[in-house]
């Protein structure tokens, strides 16, 4: 039975490596890390951690002062990334889309913590400075749907404007649901992605309490995140945003759009077992669902961009699920966790890793897992890409995995554009 194909026609991001998708991919291929030692908080409440922040991001320069001033940083990152994606898709010019396509166009966005920096500012004002009033913008800056709302306004998109909050799977879910919207015929164009600016003091302290934040083995922050490694010690928090323009394939071709890749499949599931301990069976359900949806076989997969947070529990579970999925093909399938270099962008991780996976299938190159000196035997069985990336890879189908706290799983399948 024929069904609509979905093209990825635009890519945009703001991440610890900057705002250029090609520059990001090149840095990842070199095995470079953006993780540094950073101090979060202010005044008497500070904490130094290893993190991957968007240090050079100037919201006023990127968005204009009037727009940036009414946004939390989460929305600022989103707006900048989405603008890049929209421009990359060739949609920035007036009349690029018909009024009908514009009015039905959707925004599906993911974030785990939303306007959390605004919330911390409010609490600081009220409880530390005994203010009796706080900024009138607090609600509209802090609300989790702020980013998506701004994007709909910026691009005049009148269809569904939805925000998915599924922890680390938030933006992967947004991308996948965008696929479904276009296939259903609801719309021709969907702006999808995610943003996260979750490095305020209180939230970082909350992560510290979970005892999952990475430590560096040698004092060098860039060595802290070591997915699948025997000596891994946890995750590195990051911030940023990534956006993709999804478009009905025929619509994209008709307007002469450049197609980066095909979004071929999406699978989602829930472990329904534990809030933090992942389950291979649940992840396997999402993986199989994504493959079924892509009408593909395990042998078609050439690369997996792993969730790979470098936690002691999470990495082996993911590899176990991948081995179950791939069976006899497992040893031939390249896998890497790029979180080792750009950090864990939380609600935005699904989107930035989807973008990286698109670049991989588009360029026939797979980035490495940085800092992977010795594969933990519990994580063995797949073809771990280590050191620097591989080029000249015959890559037709790749997966991007997102496995979240709460047990929600989302897997995206990207196919090389024919």
């Amino acid at each position, binding site marked *: 039975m024929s069904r609509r194909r979905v093209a990825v026609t635009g890519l945009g991001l703001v991440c610890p490596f900057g705002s250029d998708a090609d520059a990001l991919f090149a840095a990842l291929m070199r095995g470079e890390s953006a993780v540094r030692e950073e101090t979060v908080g202010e005044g008497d409440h500070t904490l130094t951690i290893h993190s991957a922040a968007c240090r050079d991001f100037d919201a006023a320069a990127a968005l204009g002062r*009037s727009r940036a*001033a009414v946004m939390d940083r989460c929305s600022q990152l989103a707006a900048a990334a989405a603008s890049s994606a929209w421009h990359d898709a060739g949609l920035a010019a007036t009349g690029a889309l018909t009024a009908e396509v514009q009015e039905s166009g959707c925004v599906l966005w993911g974030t785990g913590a939303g306007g959390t920096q605004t919330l911390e500012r409010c609490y600081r004002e009220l409880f530390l400075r005994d203010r009796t*009033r706080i900024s009138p913008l607090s609600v509209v800056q802090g609300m989790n749907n702020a980013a998506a709302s701004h994007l709909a306004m910026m691009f005049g998109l009148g269809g569904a404007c939805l925000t998915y909050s599924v922890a680390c799977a938030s933006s992967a879910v947004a991308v996948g649901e965008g696929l479904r919207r276009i296939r259903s015929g609801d719309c021709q164009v969907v702006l999808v992605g995610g943003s996260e600016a979750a490095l305020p003091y209180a939230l970082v302290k909350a992560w510290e309490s979970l005892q999952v934040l990475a430590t560096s083995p040698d004092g060098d922050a860039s060595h802290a995140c070591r997915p699948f490694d025997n000596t891994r010690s946890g995750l590195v928090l990051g911030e940023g945003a990534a956006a993709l323009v999804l478009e009905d394939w025929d619509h994209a071709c008709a307007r002469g759009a450049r197609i980066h890749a095909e979004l071929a499949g999406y699978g989602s599931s829930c472990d329904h077992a534990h809030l933090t301990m992942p389950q291979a069976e649940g992840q396997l359900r999402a993986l199989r669902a994504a493959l079924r949806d892509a009408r593909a076989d395990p042998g078609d997969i050439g690369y997996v961009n792993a969730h790979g947070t470098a936690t002691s529990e999470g990495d082996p579970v993911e590899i176990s699920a991948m081995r179950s999925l791939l069976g006899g093909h497992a040893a031939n399938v390249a896998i890497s966790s790029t979180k080792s270099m750009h950090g864990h962008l939380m609600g935005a991780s699904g989107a930035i890793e989807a973008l990286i996976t698109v670049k991989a299938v588009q360029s026939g190159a797979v980035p490495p897992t940085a800092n992977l000196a010795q594969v933990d035997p519990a994580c063995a069985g797949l073809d771990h890409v280590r050191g620097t990336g591989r080029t000249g890879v015959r890559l037709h189908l790749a997966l991007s995995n997102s496995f979240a706290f709460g047990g929600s799983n989302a897997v995206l399948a990207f196919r090389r554009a024919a």
Partner: protein
Amino acid sequence: MKVKQVLPLNGLSALELVRQALSHYADVAPELIVPEVRLDAIGVDSLTLAELLFELEDQIGLTIPEGRTAPHLVSDIVRLIEPYLEQAQAAA
């Protein structure tokens, strides 16, 4: 996060204070913010205006009562804060 700078009030005119505050929210050079300028022409909508007035109250250290007519021009904001600025400067 934006760090608000509290300006010394002595000798500062209401127009200068409004200019400094508007520079955080409008993409226009401070010297072009003159009394006749319409707020909507420099990107100041109702939400931004509420935030702007909140910041001006922060700078002056006094609360401007509710129920006032909404400003449309820069001069409207100047007239609104002038008595409170004078009060704050007299108390300093």
